[in-house]
Protein backbone atom coordinates (compact mmCIF):
# COMPACT_ATOMS: atom_id res chain seq x y z
CA UNK A 1 0.00 0.00 0.00
CA UNK A 2 1.43 3.39 -0.96
CA UNK A 3 1.68 6.32 1.45
CA UNK A 4 -1.00 8.64 -0.02
CA UNK A 5 -3.45 5.77 -0.08
CA UNK A 6 -2.86 5.15 3.61
CA UNK A 7 -3.45 8.80 4.45
CA UNK A 8 -6.63 8.80 2.41
CA UNK A 9 -7.98 5.74 4.18
CA UNK A 10 -7.15 7.21 7.57
CA UNK A 11 -8.84 10.53 6.89
CA UNK A 12 -11.83 8.90 5.26
CA UNK A 13 -12.42 6.30 7.98
CA UNK A 14 -15.31 7.11 10.32
CA UNK A 15 -14.40 7.85 13.97
CA UNK A 16 -16.03 4.61 15.15
CA UNK A 17 -13.30 2.44 13.63
CA UNK A 18 -10.59 4.56 15.19
CA UNK A 19 -11.87 4.11 18.72
CA UNK A 20 -11.03 0.43 18.72
CA UNK A 21 -7.23 0.53 19.03
CA UNK A 22 -7.59 3.17 21.71
CA UNK A 23 -10.07 1.04 23.66
CA UNK A 24 -7.78 -1.96 23.38
CA UNK A 25 -4.95 0.09 24.78
CA UNK A 26 -7.16 1.21 27.66
CA UNK A 27 -8.13 -2.37 28.39
CA UNK A 28 -4.48 -3.40 28.51
CA UNK A 29 -3.62 -0.59 30.92
CA UNK A 30 -6.56 -1.62 33.12
CA UNK A 31 -5.35 -5.22 33.11
CA UNK A 32 -1.87 -3.99 34.00
CA UNK A 33 -3.13 -2.05 37.00
CA UNK A 34 -5.25 -5.00 38.14
CA UNK A 35 -2.12 -7.07 38.74
CA UNK A 36 -0.57 -5.94 42.02
CA UNK A 37 3.07 -6.57 41.08
CA UNK A 38 2.65 -4.72 37.79
CA UNK A 39 0.97 -1.74 39.45
CA UNK A 40 3.62 -1.49 42.16
CA UNK A 41 6.43 -1.95 39.65
CA UNK A 42 4.97 0.64 37.30
CA UNK A 43 4.57 3.10 40.17
CA UNK A 44 8.21 2.68 41.25
CA UNK A 45 9.54 3.04 37.71
CA UNK A 46 7.39 6.09 36.93
CA UNK A 47 8.37 7.70 40.23
CA UNK A 48 12.06 7.31 39.38
CA UNK A 49 11.52 8.60 35.85
CA UNK A 50 9.77 11.68 37.29
CA UNK A 51 12.55 12.23 39.85
CA UNK A 52 15.19 11.89 37.13
CA UNK A 53 13.45 14.37 34.83
CA UNK A 54 12.86 16.83 37.66
CA UNK A 55 16.35 16.41 39.18
CA UNK A 56 17.55 19.90 38.10
CA UNK A 57 14.48 21.45 39.74
CA UNK A 58 14.07 19.45 42.93
CA UNK A 59 17.67 18.59 43.85
CA UNK A 60 18.58 20.89 46.75
CA UNK A 61 22.23 21.29 45.66
CA UNK A 62 24.26 20.94 42.43
CA UNK A 63 25.41 17.29 42.24
CA UNK A 64 29.13 18.06 42.39
CA UNK A 65 29.10 20.94 44.87
CA UNK A 66 31.18 20.40 48.02
CA UNK A 67 29.92 21.60 51.37
CA UNK A 68 33.18 21.57 53.30
CA UNK A 69 31.35 22.50 56.49
CA UNK A 70 29.45 19.20 56.32
CA UNK A 71 32.64 17.11 56.26
CA UNK A 72 32.89 17.01 60.05
CA UNK A 73 29.36 15.62 60.39
CA UNK A 74 28.31 14.01 57.10
CA UNK A 75 25.31 12.19 58.60
CA UNK A 76 21.74 13.15 57.59
CA UNK A 77 20.73 16.58 58.89
CA UNK A 78 18.22 19.30 58.12
CA UNK A 79 20.55 20.91 55.57
CA UNK A 80 21.37 17.56 53.92
CA UNK A 81 18.42 15.19 54.23
CA UNK A 82 20.40 12.08 53.32
CA UNK A 83 23.72 13.42 54.56
CA UNK A 84 26.80 14.07 52.44
CA UNK A 85 29.51 11.84 50.98
CA UNK A 86 33.24 11.71 51.72
CA UNK A 87 33.79 14.96 49.80
CA UNK A 88 30.91 16.84 51.39
CA UNK A 89 28.61 16.46 48.37
CA UNK A 90 24.88 16.27 49.09
CA UNK A 91 23.78 12.62 48.78
CA UNK A 92 20.14 13.37 47.94
CA UNK A 93 21.15 15.58 45.02
CA UNK A 94 23.68 13.04 43.75
CA UNK A 95 21.16 10.19 43.96
CA UNK A 96 18.54 12.23 42.05
CA UNK A 97 21.05 13.23 39.37
CA UNK A 98 22.44 9.68 39.29
CA UNK A 99 19.05 8.37 38.14
CA UNK A 100 19.43 10.19 34.82
CA UNK A 101 22.33 8.33 33.16
CA UNK A 102 20.93 4.99 34.34
CA UNK A 103 17.47 5.65 32.94
CA UNK A 104 18.90 6.71 29.59
CA UNK A 105 21.64 4.11 29.12
CA UNK A 106 19.72 1.01 30.22
CA UNK A 107 16.68 1.48 27.93
CA UNK A 108 18.86 2.58 25.00
CA UNK A 109 20.98 -0.54 25.37
CA UNK A 110 17.83 -2.68 25.55
CA UNK A 111 16.45 -1.08 22.38
CA UNK A 112 19.78 -1.64 20.65
CA UNK A 113 19.87 -5.25 21.74
CA UNK A 114 16.24 -5.76 20.76
CA UNK A 115 16.81 -4.31 17.29
CA UNK A 116 20.00 -6.25 16.62
CA UNK A 117 18.72 -9.41 18.29
CA UNK A 118 15.39 -9.34 16.45
CA UNK A 119 17.11 -8.99 13.09
CA UNK A 120 19.53 -11.83 13.85
CA UNK A 121 16.78 -14.02 15.27
CA UNK A 122 14.45 -13.39 12.33
CA UNK A 123 17.19 -14.13 9.84
CA UNK A 124 18.26 -17.27 11.71
CA UNK A 125 14.73 -18.56 12.10
CA UNK A 126 13.37 -17.59 8.70
CA UNK A 127 16.25 -18.68 6.52
CA UNK A 128 17.24 -21.76 8.45
CA UNK A 129 20.08 -23.67 6.77
CA UNK A 130 23.56 -22.25 7.01
CA UNK A 131 22.70 -18.64 7.86
CA UNK A 132 20.72 -19.96 10.79
CA UNK A 133 23.52 -22.26 11.87
CA UNK A 134 26.17 -19.53 11.69
CA UNK A 135 24.04 -17.02 13.64
CA UNK A 136 23.02 -19.57 16.26
CA UNK A 137 26.60 -20.71 16.78
CA UNK A 138 27.89 -17.13 17.03
CA UNK A 139 25.22 -16.36 19.60
CA UNK A 140 26.10 -19.51 21.55
CA UNK A 141 29.72 -18.40 21.70
CA UNK A 142 28.82 -14.97 23.08
CA UNK A 143 26.37 -16.53 25.52
CA UNK A 144 28.89 -19.08 26.78
CA UNK A 145 31.24 -16.31 27.80
CA UNK A 146 30.99 -15.01 31.37
CA UNK A 147 30.01 -11.52 30.21
CA UNK A 148 31.39 -9.68 33.22
CA UNK A 149 34.88 -10.71 32.12
CA UNK A 150 34.12 -9.51 28.61
CA UNK A 151 33.02 -6.14 30.01
CA UNK A 152 36.20 -5.85 32.05
CA UNK A 153 38.42 -6.61 29.07
CA UNK A 154 36.57 -4.34 26.63
CA UNK A 155 35.95 -1.39 28.94
CA UNK A 156 39.44 -1.51 30.46
CA UNK A 157 40.76 -1.48 26.91
CA UNK A 158 38.64 1.14 25.18
CA UNK A 159 38.00 3.24 28.26
CA UNK A 160 34.61 3.68 29.79
CA UNK A 161 31.98 6.08 28.51
CA UNK A 162 28.21 6.06 28.20
CA UNK A 163 28.43 5.04 24.52
CA UNK A 164 30.92 2.25 25.18
CA UNK A 165 28.67 0.87 27.90
CA UNK A 166 25.66 1.00 25.57
CA UNK A 167 27.77 -0.75 22.94
CA UNK A 168 28.91 -3.68 25.10
CA UNK A 169 25.44 -4.10 26.59
CA UNK A 170 23.88 -4.18 23.12
CA UNK A 171 26.38 -6.71 21.81
CA UNK A 172 26.15 -9.05 24.79
CA UNK A 173 22.36 -8.92 25.20
CA UNK A 174 21.44 -9.22 21.50
CA UNK A 175 22.15 -13.00 21.35
CA UNK A 176 19.58 -13.66 24.09
CA UNK A 177 16.90 -11.73 22.20
CA UNK A 178 18.01 -13.43 18.98
CA UNK A 179 17.48 -16.84 20.57
CA UNK A 180 13.95 -15.94 21.70
CA UNK A 181 12.98 -14.40 18.36
CA UNK A 182 14.45 -17.33 16.44
CA UNK A 183 12.39 -19.79 18.42
CA UNK A 184 9.21 -17.86 17.74
CA UNK A 185 10.06 -17.34 14.08
CA UNK A 186 10.54 -21.08 13.60
CA UNK A 187 7.04 -21.52 14.93
CA UNK A 188 5.40 -18.59 13.12
CA UNK A 189 6.87 -19.08 9.66
CA UNK A 190 4.64 -22.09 9.06
CA UNK A 191 1.46 -20.03 9.57
CA UNK A 192 -1.01 -19.40 6.76
CA UNK A 193 -0.59 -15.63 6.75
CA UNK A 194 3.13 -16.05 6.08
CA UNK A 195 2.34 -18.40 3.21
CA UNK A 196 -0.20 -15.84 1.96
CA UNK A 197 2.41 -13.07 2.06
CA UNK A 198 4.85 -15.27 0.17
CA UNK A 199 2.15 -15.97 -2.39
CA UNK A 200 1.61 -12.22 -2.81
CA UNK A 201 5.30 -12.00 -3.65
CA UNK A 202 6.39 -9.97 -0.63
CA UNK A 203 10.13 -9.79 0.05
CA UNK A 204 11.67 -11.86 2.83
CA UNK A 205 12.48 -8.68 4.78
CA UNK A 206 8.86 -7.53 4.59
CA UNK A 207 7.57 -10.89 5.77
CA UNK A 208 10.03 -10.94 8.66
CA UNK A 209 9.36 -7.40 9.85
CA UNK A 210 5.66 -6.97 9.09
CA UNK A 211 4.19 -10.46 9.29
CA UNK A 212 6.32 -12.28 11.86
CA UNK A 213 7.86 -9.72 14.24
CA UNK A 214 4.58 -8.12 15.47
CA UNK A 215 3.31 -11.54 16.47
CA UNK A 216 6.39 -12.14 18.59
CA UNK A 217 6.00 -8.92 20.56
CA UNK A 218 4.40 -10.32 23.73
CA UNK A 219 7.29 -12.41 25.08
CA UNK A 220 9.67 -9.82 23.68
CA UNK A 221 8.09 -7.05 25.75
CA UNK A 222 8.38 -9.05 28.99
CA UNK A 223 11.97 -9.85 28.16
CA UNK A 224 12.81 -6.21 27.38
CA UNK A 225 11.42 -5.19 30.75
CA UNK A 226 13.55 -7.79 32.55
CA UNK A 227 16.54 -6.84 30.40
CA UNK A 228 16.21 -3.16 31.42
CA UNK A 229 16.39 -4.23 35.06
CA UNK A 230 19.44 -6.40 34.41
CA UNK A 231 21.11 -3.59 32.47
CA UNK A 232 20.63 -1.26 35.43
CA UNK A 233 22.28 -3.88 37.64
CA UNK A 234 25.19 -4.15 35.21
CA UNK A 235 25.62 -0.37 34.98
CA UNK A 236 25.73 -0.32 38.78
CA UNK A 237 28.18 -3.21 38.91
CA UNK A 238 30.46 -1.59 36.34
CA UNK A 239 30.45 1.61 38.37
CA UNK A 240 31.18 -0.37 41.49
CA UNK A 241 34.12 -2.15 39.84
CA UNK A 242 35.56 1.19 38.73
CA UNK A 243 34.95 0.68 35.00
CA UNK A 244 31.60 2.46 34.81
CA UNK A 245 30.67 6.03 33.96
CA UNK A 246 33.65 8.32 34.57
CA UNK A 247 33.66 10.58 37.67
CA UNK A 248 32.88 13.17 38.99
CA UNK A 249 29.26 13.09 37.77
CA UNK A 250 27.11 10.98 40.07
CA UNK A 251 26.74 7.30 39.23
CA UNK A 252 25.09 5.04 41.81
CA UNK A 253 27.59 2.18 41.48
CA UNK A 254 30.53 4.58 41.60
CA UNK A 255 29.13 6.25 44.71
CA UNK A 256 29.10 2.88 46.50
CA UNK A 257 32.60 2.07 45.29
CA UNK A 258 33.98 5.33 46.72
CA UNK A 259 32.37 4.91 50.12
CA UNK A 260 31.88 1.25 51.04
CA UNK A 261 35.35 1.17 52.58
CA UNK A 262 34.00 3.58 55.19
CA UNK A 263 30.99 1.39 55.97
CA UNK A 264 31.89 0.94 59.62
CA UNK A 265 32.07 4.71 60.18
CA UNK A 266 29.56 6.22 57.72
CA UNK A 267 27.26 3.44 56.48
CA UNK A 268 24.72 5.94 55.10
CA UNK A 269 27.09 6.96 52.28
CA UNK A 270 26.82 3.56 50.59
CA UNK A 271 23.42 2.48 51.94
CA UNK A 272 21.41 5.22 50.20
CA UNK A 273 22.80 4.71 46.67
CA UNK A 274 22.36 0.93 47.16
CA UNK A 275 18.74 1.47 48.16
CA UNK A 276 18.20 3.69 45.11
CA UNK A 277 19.51 1.19 42.56
CA UNK A 278 17.80 -1.76 44.26
CA UNK A 279 14.40 -0.06 44.28
CA UNK A 280 14.62 0.85 40.59
CA UNK A 281 15.58 -2.70 39.55
CA UNK A 282 12.85 -4.17 41.76
CA UNK A 283 10.41 -1.84 39.99
CA UNK A 284 11.34 -3.12 36.54
CA UNK A 285 11.32 -6.77 37.62
CA UNK A 286 7.91 -6.49 39.30
CA UNK A 287 6.62 -4.88 36.12
CA UNK A 288 7.99 -7.83 34.14
CA UNK A 289 6.34 -10.33 36.51
CA UNK A 290 3.05 -8.47 36.10
CA UNK A 291 3.33 -8.30 32.30
CA UNK A 292 3.97 -12.02 32.17
CA UNK A 293 0.90 -12.74 34.32
CA UNK A 294 -1.26 -10.64 31.99
CA UNK A 295 0.25 -12.28 28.93
CA UNK A 296 -0.56 -15.74 30.31
CA UNK A 297 -4.19 -14.84 30.98
CA UNK A 298 -5.02 -13.65 27.46
Amino acid at each position, binding site marked *: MSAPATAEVLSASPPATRVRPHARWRRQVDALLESTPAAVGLAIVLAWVALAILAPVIAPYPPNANDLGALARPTPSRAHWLGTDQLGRDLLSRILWGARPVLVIAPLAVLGAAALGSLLGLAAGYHGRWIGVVITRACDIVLSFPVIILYMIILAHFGSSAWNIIGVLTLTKAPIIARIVRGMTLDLREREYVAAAKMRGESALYIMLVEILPNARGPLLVDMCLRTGYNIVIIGVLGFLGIGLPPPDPDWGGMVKDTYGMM*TVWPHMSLFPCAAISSLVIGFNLLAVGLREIGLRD
Partner: protein
Amino acid sequence: MARFFVKHTLFLLLTLFVVSFLVFTLNEFSPGAVARKLLGAYATQEQVETLTKQMGLDRPLLVRYVEYLGTVASGDLGYSQRFKLPVKDVLFKHLAHTAVLAAVAFACIVPFSMLLGVTAGMREGSRLDRGILMFSTIVASIPEFALGVFLASVFVVWLGWLPGTATLLPGGGWSLPAQLVLPVAVIVLFDSGYVVSMVRASMVEVMQRPFIRTAVLKGLPFRSVILRHAVRNAMLTPITVIMLQINYLVAGVVVVETVFAYPGFGRMMLEAALFKDIALVEAGALVAVGLAVITNILGDVAYVLLDPRIRA
Protein backbone atom coordinates in the same frame (compact mmCIF):
# COMPACT_ATOMS: atom_id res chain seq x y z
CA MET B 1 26.23 -40.61 22.97
CA ALA B 2 29.59 -40.66 21.18
CA ARG B 3 28.28 -38.25 18.54
CA PHE B 4 27.01 -36.02 21.29
CA PHE B 5 30.46 -35.80 22.86
CA VAL B 6 32.28 -35.23 19.58
CA LYS B 7 29.88 -32.45 18.64
CA HIS B 8 30.23 -30.72 21.99
CA THR B 9 34.00 -31.07 22.12
CA LEU B 10 34.27 -29.52 18.67
CA PHE B 11 32.10 -26.63 19.81
CA LEU B 12 34.28 -26.20 22.90
CA LEU B 13 37.41 -26.02 20.75
CA LEU B 14 35.77 -23.61 18.29
CA THR B 15 34.69 -21.34 21.15
CA LEU B 16 38.16 -21.38 22.68
CA PHE B 17 39.73 -20.47 19.35
CA VAL B 18 37.33 -17.63 18.67
CA VAL B 19 37.62 -16.20 22.16
CA SER B 20 41.39 -16.43 22.37
CA PHE B 21 41.70 -14.80 18.95
CA LEU B 22 39.29 -12.00 19.87
CA VAL B 23 41.03 -11.24 23.15
CA PHE B 24 44.39 -11.42 21.42
CA THR B 25 43.25 -9.05 18.65
CA LEU B 26 41.68 -6.67 21.12
CA ASN B 27 45.03 -6.18 22.78
CA GLU B 28 46.59 -5.36 19.42
CA PHE B 29 44.80 -2.04 19.01
CA SER B 30 47.53 -0.36 21.00
CA PRO B 31 50.80 -2.31 20.58
CA GLY B 32 52.91 0.34 22.30
CA ALA B 33 50.70 0.29 25.38
CA VAL B 34 52.39 -2.70 27.01
CA ALA B 35 55.87 -1.23 26.93
CA ARG B 36 54.53 2.17 27.96
CA LYS B 37 52.78 0.62 30.94
CA LEU B 38 55.94 -1.18 32.03
CA LEU B 39 58.26 1.78 31.63
CA GLY B 40 55.98 4.39 33.17
CA ALA B 41 54.88 7.79 31.95
CA TYR B 42 58.36 9.34 31.86
CA ALA B 43 59.99 6.91 29.42
CA THR B 44 60.97 8.37 26.05
CA GLN B 45 59.32 7.21 22.82
CA GLU B 46 62.61 5.51 21.84
CA GLN B 47 62.74 3.46 25.02
CA VAL B 48 59.15 2.35 24.44
CA GLU B 49 59.94 1.34 20.86
CA THR B 50 63.06 -0.57 21.91
CA LEU B 51 61.20 -2.54 24.57
CA THR B 52 58.34 -3.23 22.14
CA LYS B 53 60.89 -4.65 19.70
CA GLN B 54 62.67 -6.63 22.43
CA MET B 55 59.40 -8.23 23.50
CA GLY B 56 58.67 -9.04 19.87
CA LEU B 57 55.47 -7.02 19.88
CA ASP B 58 56.24 -5.32 16.55
CA ARG B 59 55.71 -8.46 14.43
CA PRO B 60 52.47 -9.21 12.53
CA LEU B 61 49.41 -10.20 14.54
CA LEU B 62 48.84 -13.63 13.03
CA VAL B 63 52.47 -14.67 13.51
CA ARG B 64 52.29 -13.84 17.17
CA TYR B 65 48.89 -15.46 17.62
CA VAL B 66 50.13 -18.74 16.17
CA GLU B 67 53.26 -18.49 18.28
CA TYR B 68 51.09 -17.83 21.33
CA LEU B 69 48.96 -20.89 20.62
CA GLY B 70 52.14 -22.93 20.34
CA THR B 71 53.47 -21.81 23.73
CA VAL B 72 50.08 -22.33 25.38
CA ALA B 73 49.85 -25.82 23.90
CA SER B 74 53.26 -26.62 25.39
CA GLY B 75 51.93 -25.64 28.81
CA ASP B 76 53.61 -22.24 29.11
CA LEU B 77 51.02 -19.52 29.78
CA GLY B 78 53.49 -16.66 29.88
CA TYR B 79 54.53 -14.16 32.52
CA SER B 80 52.22 -11.84 34.42
CA GLN B 81 53.47 -8.25 34.26
CA ARG B 82 51.12 -7.20 37.05
CA PHE B 83 52.05 -9.81 39.66
CA LYS B 84 55.65 -10.34 38.44
CA LEU B 85 55.10 -14.10 38.54
CA PRO B 86 54.46 -16.83 35.94
CA VAL B 87 50.79 -16.70 34.86
CA LYS B 88 50.36 -20.33 35.81
CA ASP B 89 51.13 -19.66 39.48
CA VAL B 90 48.98 -16.54 39.74
CA LEU B 91 46.07 -18.05 37.84
CA PHE B 92 45.78 -21.33 39.69
CA LYS B 93 46.21 -19.82 43.14
CA HIS B 94 43.33 -17.39 42.54
CA LEU B 95 41.24 -20.01 40.79
CA ALA B 96 41.59 -22.31 43.80
CA HIS B 97 40.34 -19.55 46.09
CA THR B 98 37.36 -18.88 43.87
CA ALA B 99 36.66 -22.60 43.58
CA VAL B 100 36.33 -22.80 47.36
CA LEU B 101 33.93 -19.84 47.43
CA ALA B 102 31.91 -21.10 44.47
CA ALA B 103 31.72 -24.67 45.76
CA VAL B 104 30.42 -23.61 49.18
CA ALA B 105 27.94 -21.22 47.55
CA PHE B 106 26.78 -23.85 45.06
CA ALA B 107 26.34 -26.41 47.82
CA CYS B 108 23.97 -23.95 49.52
CA ILE B 109 22.14 -22.68 46.42
CA VAL B 110 20.92 -26.08 45.25
CA PRO B 111 19.12 -27.30 48.38
CA PHE B 112 17.95 -23.79 49.31
CA SER B 113 16.36 -23.02 45.96
CA MET B 114 14.95 -26.54 45.52
CA LEU B 115 13.24 -26.33 48.90
CA LEU B 116 11.72 -22.92 48.14
CA GLY B 117 10.87 -23.77 44.53
CA VAL B 118 9.17 -27.08 45.30
CA THR B 119 7.25 -25.58 48.25
CA ALA B 120 6.04 -22.71 46.07
CA GLY B 121 5.20 -24.81 43.04
CA MET B 122 3.27 -27.63 44.68
CA ARG B 123 0.25 -25.38 45.31
CA GLU B 124 0.21 -22.78 42.56
CA GLY B 125 -1.40 -19.49 43.50
CA SER B 126 -1.46 -20.17 47.23
CA ARG B 127 -0.35 -17.47 49.63
CA LEU B 128 2.90 -19.34 50.31
CA ASP B 129 3.55 -19.57 46.57
CA ARG B 130 3.03 -15.86 45.99
CA GLY B 131 5.14 -15.01 49.02
CA ILE B 132 8.08 -17.10 47.82
CA LEU B 133 7.73 -15.74 44.29
CA MET B 134 7.83 -12.16 45.56
CA PHE B 135 10.81 -12.93 47.80
CA SER B 136 12.82 -14.48 44.97
CA THR B 137 11.93 -11.66 42.55
CA ILE B 138 13.00 -9.00 45.00
CA VAL B 139 16.19 -10.72 46.13
CA ALA B 140 17.23 -11.39 42.53
CA SER B 141 16.67 -7.71 41.72
CA ILE B 142 19.14 -6.31 44.23
CA PRO B 143 22.62 -5.97 42.70
CA GLU B 144 25.24 -8.11 44.45
CA PHE B 145 27.24 -5.16 45.70
CA ALA B 146 24.09 -3.65 47.23
CA LEU B 147 23.22 -7.00 48.85
CA GLY B 148 26.75 -7.08 50.20
CA VAL B 149 26.42 -3.56 51.59
CA PHE B 150 23.00 -4.33 53.14
CA LEU B 151 24.17 -7.56 54.78
CA ALA B 152 27.45 -6.00 55.92
CA SER B 153 25.68 -3.01 57.47
CA VAL B 154 23.55 -5.38 59.57
CA PHE B 155 25.98 -8.14 60.48
CA VAL B 156 29.25 -6.20 60.52
CA VAL B 157 28.44 -2.62 61.42
CA TRP B 158 25.33 -3.04 63.56
CA LEU B 159 25.63 -6.46 65.21
CA GLY B 160 29.38 -6.93 64.85
CA TRP B 161 28.97 -10.68 64.40
CA LEU B 162 31.00 -11.13 61.24
CA PRO B 163 34.07 -9.62 59.55
CA GLY B 164 33.52 -7.15 56.70
CA THR B 165 36.35 -8.58 54.61
CA ALA B 166 37.36 -12.07 53.57
CA THR B 167 41.03 -11.73 52.75
CA LEU B 168 41.76 -15.36 53.79
CA LEU B 169 44.64 -14.04 55.87
CA PRO B 170 44.79 -15.37 59.44
CA GLY B 171 45.13 -11.86 60.92
CA GLY B 172 42.20 -9.89 62.32
CA GLY B 173 41.06 -12.62 64.65
CA TRP B 174 38.36 -14.08 62.38
CA SER B 175 38.33 -17.75 61.46
CA LEU B 176 38.12 -18.81 57.82
CA PRO B 177 34.50 -20.01 57.99
CA ALA B 178 33.45 -16.73 59.61
CA GLN B 179 35.11 -14.83 56.75
CA LEU B 180 33.23 -16.89 54.17
CA VAL B 181 29.73 -16.45 55.62
CA LEU B 182 28.89 -13.06 54.10
CA PRO B 183 30.36 -13.62 50.61
CA VAL B 184 28.56 -16.97 50.38
CA ALA B 185 25.30 -15.47 51.66
CA VAL B 186 25.36 -12.76 48.99
CA ILE B 187 25.98 -15.24 46.17
CA VAL B 188 23.34 -17.66 47.44
CA LEU B 189 20.66 -14.98 47.80
CA PHE B 190 21.37 -13.36 44.46
CA ASP B 191 21.62 -16.56 42.42
CA SER B 192 18.89 -18.56 44.08
CA GLY B 193 16.24 -16.03 43.05
CA TYR B 194 16.47 -17.18 39.47
CA VAL B 195 16.76 -20.89 40.26
CA VAL B 196 13.79 -20.76 42.64
CA SER B 197 11.54 -19.34 39.93
CA MET B 198 12.76 -22.02 37.49
CA VAL B 199 12.15 -24.88 39.93
CA ARG B 200 8.77 -23.40 40.78
CA ALA B 201 7.68 -23.07 37.16
CA SER B 202 8.76 -26.63 36.42
CA MET B 203 6.99 -27.91 39.53
CA VAL B 204 3.77 -26.07 38.61
CA GLU B 205 3.84 -27.66 35.19
CA VAL B 206 4.41 -31.18 36.54
CA MET B 207 1.61 -30.82 39.10
CA GLN B 208 -0.88 -30.37 36.24
CA ARG B 209 0.08 -33.63 34.52
CA PRO B 210 -2.34 -36.58 34.55
CA PHE B 211 0.01 -38.92 36.44
CA ILE B 212 -0.06 -36.62 39.46
CA ARG B 213 -3.86 -36.67 39.44
CA THR B 214 -3.73 -40.45 39.18
CA ALA B 215 -1.38 -40.63 42.16
CA VAL B 216 -3.65 -38.38 44.21
CA LEU B 217 -6.80 -40.22 43.19
CA LYS B 218 -5.40 -43.63 44.04
CA GLY B 219 -5.09 -42.36 47.59
CA LEU B 220 -1.38 -41.72 48.02
CA PRO B 221 -0.59 -39.24 50.77
CA PHE B 222 0.23 -35.75 49.40
CA ARG B 223 3.74 -35.99 50.83
CA SER B 224 4.67 -39.02 48.80
CA VAL B 225 2.98 -37.67 45.67
CA ILE B 226 5.28 -34.66 45.93
CA LEU B 227 8.45 -36.47 46.92
CA ARG B 228 8.17 -39.66 44.84
CA HIS B 229 6.37 -38.45 41.74
CA ALA B 230 6.46 -34.69 41.28
CA VAL B 231 9.92 -33.63 42.42
CA ARG B 232 11.76 -36.17 40.33
CA ASN B 233 10.03 -35.05 37.16
CA ALA B 234 10.20 -31.40 38.04
CA MET B 235 13.99 -31.53 38.40
CA LEU B 236 14.57 -32.00 34.68
CA THR B 237 14.59 -28.39 33.51
CA PRO B 238 16.18 -26.88 36.61
CA ILE B 239 19.19 -29.22 36.38
CA THR B 240 20.24 -27.58 33.12
CA VAL B 241 19.47 -24.17 34.54
CA ILE B 242 21.51 -24.89 37.64
CA MET B 243 24.46 -25.98 35.54
CA LEU B 244 24.13 -22.83 33.44
CA GLN B 245 24.04 -20.99 36.72
CA ILE B 246 27.76 -21.64 37.12
CA ASN B 247 28.24 -19.00 34.46
CA TYR B 248 26.27 -16.50 36.53
CA LEU B 249 28.15 -17.71 39.57
CA VAL B 250 31.38 -16.54 37.97
CA ALA B 251 29.86 -13.13 37.22
CA GLY B 252 28.50 -12.75 40.73
CA VAL B 253 31.76 -13.93 42.23
CA VAL B 254 33.73 -11.10 40.58
CA VAL B 255 31.61 -8.49 42.34
CA VAL B 256 31.42 -10.32 45.64
CA GLU B 257 35.19 -10.78 45.66
CA THR B 258 35.61 -7.05 45.18
CA VAL B 259 33.14 -6.19 47.94
CA PHE B 260 34.84 -8.43 50.48
CA ALA B 261 38.45 -8.08 49.24
CA TYR B 262 38.53 -11.83 48.57
CA PRO B 263 41.73 -12.84 46.72
CA GLY B 264 39.99 -14.77 43.94
CA PHE B 265 39.85 -15.18 40.18
CA GLY B 266 37.40 -12.35 39.51
CA ARG B 267 39.37 -9.68 41.32
CA MET B 268 42.53 -10.95 39.67
CA MET B 269 40.90 -10.56 36.23
CA LEU B 270 39.74 -7.04 37.06
CA GLU B 271 43.23 -6.04 38.16
CA ALA B 272 44.80 -7.69 35.13
CA ALA B 273 42.36 -5.99 32.74
CA LEU B 274 42.89 -2.57 34.30
CA PHE B 275 46.68 -3.05 34.24
CA LYS B 276 46.50 -4.39 30.64
CA ASP B 277 48.32 -7.53 31.76
CA ILE B 278 47.72 -9.29 28.43
CA ALA B 279 49.16 -12.69 29.27
CA LEU B 280 47.04 -13.01 32.41
CA VAL B 281 43.86 -11.64 30.76
CA GLU B 282 44.26 -14.09 27.87
CA ALA B 283 44.83 -17.12 30.06
CA GLY B 284 42.07 -16.08 32.43
CA ALA B 285 39.58 -15.56 29.60
CA LEU B 286 40.40 -19.01 28.18
CA VAL B 287 39.90 -20.65 31.56
CA ALA B 288 36.63 -18.80 32.13
CA VAL B 289 35.22 -19.76 28.73
CA GLY B 290 36.45 -23.32 29.03
CA LEU B 291 34.73 -23.72 32.40
CA ALA B 292 31.54 -22.14 31.09
CA VAL B 293 31.33 -24.41 28.05
CA ILE B 294 32.21 -27.53 30.04
CA THR B 295 29.47 -26.82 32.56
CA ASN B 296 27.03 -26.35 29.67
CA ILE B 297 27.99 -29.77 28.38
CA LEU B 298 27.66 -31.30 31.86
CA GLY B 299 24.20 -29.75 32.05
CA ASP B 300 23.21 -31.48 28.81
CA VAL B 301 24.65 -34.78 30.03
CA ALA B 302 22.76 -34.54 33.31
CA TYR B 303 19.58 -33.84 31.36
CA VAL B 304 20.08 -36.90 29.19
CA LEU B 305 20.86 -39.12 32.18
CA LEU B 306 17.78 -37.97 34.09
CA ASP B 307 15.33 -38.40 31.24
CA PRO B 308 15.47 -41.91 29.78
CA ARG B 309 13.27 -40.84 26.85
CA ILE B 310 16.05 -38.70 25.38
CA ARG B 311 18.70 -41.37 25.86
CA ALA B 312 17.04 -43.77 23.46
